[in-house]
């Protein structure tokens, strides 16, 4: 009897307890979500009707046009005046924020939003130059499925900690002059790193890469490094995702130097001079000085053909042994003058509407960072594709993606390259 009563009381208590806990969890959850909501409402109300200075590389007319389109959109949506500050190198913006920090300008910075990834992000994050914990609170961030999709929370292996909102994905794409590489016995298209070496030996002076620390040149070297380690044992391979140290540097990079020692004598200008940028490489293809080149922004190739900057005989393709791929982001400096407005813009850039527009081949062709399963059918419909240009990269041609090594390898490669090849003998 007593025991019965005890159990009744206990079960009543425990019921209450469970109910209370459930209530608590629900209320916390709703509290958290209302908190997020009210946070966003605050961002919206504070961010409207202002200017946002968006520091972004300005070397591609198509990308510039897309940013102009985005500027019109945020103008009508939030009355935000998005100003594209065109950089020829993103590190200019990094230097700028640093100069402001050194001048003790901690809240009136001139950079509001910056297009960034990799080494520049690593530098800014190391020097605490970025606003923290905002990107993961953007309403549209949930479309990237962050819990199942680590790519949006890591930049070259470094956790973003909400300092960067993902914007797009890019892969290393090659293109060639089909009149110069005609497929005859000695002149077939190289589709692996090794074939590239032997092709260049047979066609000396027709291939090269931009001089490090140029971003594209570094990408080629990283592609080579990752490929050269495909057969290495797992412990050595794992070093690529670890920071470069004095101990592991020589071991990891030696295969690369051996490869370059073989490759360089076959390059344009015998490897004694390197071009300055990817754009110069494209111009040299147009001039027929080079026959094969590569880019991280595949849609620039058909766009250049349409503008007559490349001949009609250009074709794009992806290497069969793998394509180096990475995500690029937008970030807000810690001292940005218009932080809320910049968040509104970043959120818009993540919207299905903006991402779908960006993915269209004639607009930009940059791969979306949104995960289709998180979108409604109407939103998914925005991403339908059109017939690509003959010179564009054929759909689904990227067979295998290679992830970027740890950003510290960039410096190790640059330094090693500079001492070995930076001064011609």
């Amino acid at each position: 009897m007593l025991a019965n009563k005890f159990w009744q009381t206990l079960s009543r208590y425990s019921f209450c307890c469970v109910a209370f806990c459930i209530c608590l969890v629900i209320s916390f959850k709703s509290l958290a979500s209302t908190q997020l909501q009210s946070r966003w409402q605050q961002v919206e109300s504070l961010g409207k009707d202002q200017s946002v200075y968006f520091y972004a590389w300005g070397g591609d007319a198509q990308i510039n046009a897309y940013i102009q389109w985005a500027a019109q959109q945020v103008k009508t949506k939030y009355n935000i005046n998005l100003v594209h500050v065109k950089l020829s190198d993103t590190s200019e913006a990094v230097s700028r924020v640093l100069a402001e920090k050194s001048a003790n300008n901690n809240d009136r910075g001139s950079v509001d939003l910056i297009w960034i990834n990799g080494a520049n992000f690593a530098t800014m994050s190391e020097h605490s130059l970025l606003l923290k914990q905002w990107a993961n609170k953007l309403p549209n961030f949930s479309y990237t499925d962050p819990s199942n999709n680590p790519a949006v929370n890591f930049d070259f292996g470094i956790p973003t900690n909400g300092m960067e909102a993902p914007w797009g994905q890019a892969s290393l794409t090659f293109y060639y002059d089909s009149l110069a590489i005609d497929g005859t016995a000695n002149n077939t298209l190289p589709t692996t790193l090794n074939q590239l070496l032997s092709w260049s030996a047979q066609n000396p002076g027709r291939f090269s890469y931009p001089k490090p620390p140029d971003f594209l040149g570094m990408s080629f070297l990283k592609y080579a490094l990752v490929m050269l380690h495909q057969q290495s044992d797992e412990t050595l391979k794992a070093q690529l995702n670890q920071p470069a140290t004095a101990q592991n540097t020589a071991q990891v990079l030696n295969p690369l130097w051996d490869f370059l020692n073989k490759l360089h004598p076959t390059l344009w200008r015998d490897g004694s001079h390197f071009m300055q940028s990817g754009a110069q490489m494209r111009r040299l293809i147009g001039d027929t000085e080079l026959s094969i080149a590569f880019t991280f922004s595949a849609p620039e190739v058909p766009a250049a053909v349409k503008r007559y900057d490349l001949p009609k005989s250009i074709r794009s393709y992806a290497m069969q042994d793998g394509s180096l791929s990475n995500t690029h982001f937008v970030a807000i400096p810690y001292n940005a003058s218009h932080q809320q407005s910049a968040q509104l813009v970043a959120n818009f850039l993540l919207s299905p509407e903006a991402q779908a527009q960006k993915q269209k081949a004639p607009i930009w062709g940059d791969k979306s960072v949104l995960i289709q399963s998180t979108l409604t059918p109407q939103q998914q419909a925005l991403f339908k594709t059109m017939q690509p240009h003959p010179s564009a990269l054929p759909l689904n041609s990227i067979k295998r993606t290679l992830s970027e090594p740890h950003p510290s390898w960039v410096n190790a490669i640059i330094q090693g390259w500079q001492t070995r090849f930076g001064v011609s003998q």
Partner: protein
Amino acid sequence: MSVVSNKLAASPTLKPHKSADMFSKLVKLSPRFLLALLILPVIGGLISVLLPAFGYAPVLEHTTLGLHGFTMLMQTPGLTHMVMLSVGTGLISTLLAFIITLMILAAFFNSPWLNRIQRLLSPILVIPHAAAAIAVGFLIAPSGMISRLVSPWFSGWELAPNGMFPHDSFGISIILGLTLKELPFLLLMALGVLAQPELGKKLRQQHKVALNLGYCPMTAFFKVILPSLYPLLRLPILAVLAYASASVEMPLILGPNTPPTLAVAIMHWFNDVDLNLRIKASAGALLQLILTGGLLALWLGGEKTIKALFSDLLTNGEREYGGVYWQKITTVLTVFVIGFILLSLIGLIMWSVAGFWRFPAALPDQLTLLHFKSALMQMQNPLFNTLAIGLVTTLFAIIITLLCLESEQLSAKPMSRFTSLIIYLPLLVPSIAFLFGLVWLQQLVNNQAAFFNVVFTHLLFVLPYVFLSLASSYRRLDPRFAHVAASLGATPCKVFLHVKLPQLFAPILIAAALGLAISFGQYLPTLLAGGGRIATITTEAVTLANGASRRTSAVYAIMQMALPLIGFILAWVLPKYFFKSAHR
């Protein structure tokens, strides 16, 4: 400023005494203001580069003074190579430009050809260095115009060959580019000196006397004219030498990069992702300063040596040193220079309207206005900025120059040697050495007003040219007009506004056109001081030269030439309609 003086001038009867005072005070203060305006930013900028060079950079958590930066610099692979390249290209290009200038002057002195050559070359003066480098690069590249003219019918090249130019490791391409760009400047400077009525007349008479004594025309030039001409050419030559040894645009586009010239390397270090490189960059900037200083000293020393060694030649009575051959060589050289420049201009124009244009074809497959259309669409904002900055800077430069020159006349004391040298300071100190420091200072003082910062920085480069251009005309003004007006009771202010300025209308317009041209062409100062926020035609052109097609670059280069040209045409036409009497 002029509004104030206008008001004051309008009511001279009420407070004649006070208005004269105000104006005179203003005029009296202006030279000091000018000096401060030129010295402070340059010195301040240098100090702000000096501190990090010795390891003081609070942002990077370096606060202990030391030689760390210099150690890093010395360990840079290929540093000697960089230094040699900078010194070699700077010295040889200046020397070549100077010698060719002298040969052209000597061969065509007192001949109508001199004016024709001047007219052909003077448009080159307004082409920004970046645009000129692009044009020259296209000419000498393996796929360039020269190669296309002989391919494939002569050379058999179906694809562009594996060539050597541009980017050759000896810097020959840089020397070629710099020489072609500096030659017109030196020639026009020399012709400007010879156009001074007193001096020009005297020299022409002396030349004639020498001819009558049986001297060959070229010998007569070197023995009679050069000794009087050279001292007036010295500062422009030194400015050219300083610029050539530390310029960025030409070596960036035409030079080698394993390793590049020192100035280019410094710029890369300043812009590098690795912020610690800035300490090395600052040390490098200091080294650049020493190199440029050393080159200037070397030039001055060479001048003294030549004077000591060859002064006897002036009076040895020798009439002829193979003048006929030299005349022929000069003619060939002149034709070569002009042909080279014309061919690159033609190339530039063809690229701006070219459709597909594959290598061996000497002409484009089709012509299109697409590049102009798309460029003009994107150009509105930069165009507005370019004009606004140029106009504000030039207006300010002209006002301060006029006031300084007026003060010289009011006090009846010519400007001191020191002041004349200071006006050249921003041209003699390599800009890469002080601009980064200056921008840091501007950040500290005034961060938001990017437009103001850009105007202020442009002023450093515009002011010297405006001053040089106006000074000779102002000093040449007949003082009797002013004396007569003053004796009739006009205040100094009224004399300045109503007597002097109208007489100077044409020279002021020429100075304005020159100032605008200089301002339009500035790349590094605009980029740094504006923090990249202020886009002008020139910054866009360099970004695009680095990031887009040769066709778009050509359109921008043509725009860069067109703008200053419009300015010069206006300066030439307007005086025909206004202040005609004064012009006569």
